[in-house]
C-alpha cells in the first residue's frame, strides 16, 4: 500500500470505531436523525421505523460499547463485531442488563464510513438487575428484553468446541 492508502486505512479504523460509539450515544440521546445519519442513505427510510419501535417500550438506556473487531474486505467495505453492555429501564420499575453482540457491515461513500445495513443485534443475555442470567427462557429479542440470547450458542466454533 502507498503511504496515502495506509493513512486512509488508519482513518477508516478511526471512523468505524466511532460509528459504534456514535450509535451508542445517539441511541441513548434518542437522536433519531443523528442515528439514521450513521447509515448509508439508501437504507435510512426503511430503517427509521425499525429503529424507533424497540425504543418505544424502553426509557433510559446506557450503552457501553467495548470489544470491536474490524475486518476489511477492500478499501470501501468492512465487517465488524461489536460488544456492548446495555443498561436499560424497560418499564417504570425494571432496570435490566443486556450483553449484546452487533454484527455489522460498513461501507465508505465519498470518504465517509457508514453502517451499510441494519445492525444484526443479538443477545448473550438480558436479565433484570440483580438476577443471574443462568437458564433464563429464550429472549427471542426483540420480543423480550430479558432472557437467554442466541450467542455464543449460534457460533460454529462454539458448537464445534463443545461437540468434541
Amino acid at each position, binding site marked *: 500500500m502507498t*503511504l496515502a492508502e*495506509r*493513512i486512509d*486505512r*488508519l482513518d477508516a*479504523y478511526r471512523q468505524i470505531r466511532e460509528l459504534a460509539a456514535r450509535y451508542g450515544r445517539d441511541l441513548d440521546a434518542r437522536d433519531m436523525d443523528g442515528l439514521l445519519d450513521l447509515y448509508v442513505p439508501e437504507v435510512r427510510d426503511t430503517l427509521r421505523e425499525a429503529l424507533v419501535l424497540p425504543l418505544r417500550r424502553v426509557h433510559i438506556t446506557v450503552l*457501553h460499547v*467495548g*470489544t*470491536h*473487531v*474490524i475486518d476489511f474486505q477492500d478499501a470501501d467495505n468492512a465487517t465488524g*463485531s461489536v*460488544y456492548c*453492555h446495555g443498561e436499560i429501564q424497560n418499564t417504570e420499575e425494571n432496570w435490566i442488563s443486556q*450483553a449484546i453482540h452487533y454484527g455489522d457491515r460498513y461501507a465508505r461513500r465519498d470518504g465517509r464510513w457508514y453502517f451499510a445495513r441494519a445492525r444484526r443485534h443479538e443477545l*448473550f*443475555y438480558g436479565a433484570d438487575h*440483580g*438476577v*443471574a*442470567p*443462568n*437458564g433464563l427462557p429464550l429472549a427471542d429479542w426483540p420480543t423480550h428484553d430479558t432472557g437467554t440470547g442466541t*450467542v*455464543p*450458542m449460534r*457460533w460454529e*466454533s*462454539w458448537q*464445534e*468446541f*463443545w461437540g468434541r
Partner: protein
Amino acid sequence: MPEQPLPGEPPADPSGSDGTLESRVARLESVEEIRQLVARYALALDGRDVATLVSLFVPDVEVHDGRTGREALAEWFDPVLRPYRTTFHLLGNHVIDFVDDDHARGALYCRPEHEVDDLWIVMPLVYDDRYERRDGHWYFKSRRPHAFYAADVRESPLEVEGRFHFPGNPFMTRATMPERFPTWETFWA
C-alpha cells in the same frame, strides 16, 4: 513465562524509532493492529475458537505449563475453557507502551462474565500483555490476567473470601489487584 510487573514507567519509545513520516505511520498501524489483536482474542475466547485464539500468539509462544508452541497452547487452553459455558469479555481501557518498533507492553482492562453452573461470575481484570511484531504482524508474546475480584452478580466482592469466588477455575485462583500495582503498596505505606 516469568512474572513481570505491570507497565508503570513511561514508554521507552513513544512515537516511532526515527521520527520520519514512515515510522510515525507505521507506529499508528502497530497501535491499530494491537487493538484488533486484543479484540480478536475476546471474540475467539467467547466463541471457543481455539484455532483462532492460538493464532494470535507468536509461533514459539511459551505455554503456562512450560511447553512451547501454538499446538501446546491449544492443548493447554482446552481444559481451561471448559469449566464455564457462556462467557462475555467486554474490553475497556487499553494502555499500550512501545519498547521499540517490534515490542510493546499492554495493560488492558476487561470485565468478563462467566456462566459457572448456577453462578454468574463477574471478574474484572487487567491483562498484563507483551506484544511482538513478527514478519510485519503483531502477536501476543505473553498474556497474564490479574483479577480485581471474582464474584457472582448477586454477591458483593467484599462478602466472598479473598474477593475471589470462582469455583472450578483451573487457571485463575485469586484476586491480586490492585495490590499488584507497586504504587498501591507505596501509597498506603
